[in-house]
């Protein structure tokens, strides 16, 4: 996973932020995925052009974590989402 990457939703997938984290919807089913990521990743990350590096930096600053801790926490969530076929990674231009 490249820190300059951006992440997009797979075709047919939508997401919104909830108190527990992220709620993904995919009509092809199973329809709903509950990701207990709290406020680590906002749903807008998957609709915008923010890079992984930008997200890690923002989490590091918000939580007062080290760069490495923020990176590991974020990457573990993104790996899960990729393995479920909900998002895909694309190198940023």
């Amino acid at each position, binding site marked *: 996973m490249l820190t300059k990457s951006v992440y997009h939703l797979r*075709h047919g997938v*939508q997401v*919104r932020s*909830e*108190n527990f984290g992220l*709620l993904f*919807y995919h*009509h092809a089913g199973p329809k709903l995925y*509950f990701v207990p990521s709290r406020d680590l990743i906002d749903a807008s990350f998957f609709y915008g052009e923010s890079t992984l590096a930008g997200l890690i930096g923002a989490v590091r600053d918000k939580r007062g974590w080290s760069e490495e801790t923020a990176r590991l926490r974020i990457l573990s969530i993104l790996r899960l989402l990729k393995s479920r076929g909900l998002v895909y990674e694309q190198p940023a231009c």
Partner: protein
Amino acid sequence: MSNQHVEEGLSAPVNVTWELTYACNLSCVHCLSDAGKLNTQELTTEQCRDVVDQMARNRVFQLNIGGGEPFIRHDFLDLMEYAHTKGIVTCISTNGALITDDAADRLNRDLVYVQVSVDGASESSNDTIRGKGSFRRAMRAIEILTKRGVEVSINTVLTRLSFPELDALSHLATDVGAKFRVSRFRPSGRGKTTWKELNVSKEQMILFSDWLSEHKEVSTGDSFF
């Protein structure tokens, strides 16, 4: 749905079921909405667009459209297109009678799913419940939709009349390239009047449960889709 996060409360519904109109071109004996005549209190096009806007703002993922017969509204396809521009998935429940090639061409197959109501596997058994000509028109609608790659399911209300035809209905769905769904008969609308006559017996309900266990591909549930 049993889920800790759902029980704690979500920020908005995941899907919304909307009976867009009470007007209907059919008069099915079990109709839970007692649909038929146009209700003069129905929402205007602008009001409907505002409802869609509210759903989009709250990030509702899916809109289940029923009625009445939604295609009877002159602005129905415009409203579906409007919902699709907002990224909302629409699941339409219809009797299929008003689905033409032109109407189907306007449906965004990536964002629309259609459920066509069929209550018997043959013209005679279906039309006894849904009215003369309804079977033929439903089959025509399914053909028009599947030809365009729209995902279609056949929905059957479980009654004493449809119960003996479940296998045949399931095969029919497979033959026409549709999924199959069985929904509960409810004592509401005209279903209140026909309840005693049409509701399945306890024995039939148990047999239906066994049948479902053997047909995992068949959907059920009170909500649409």
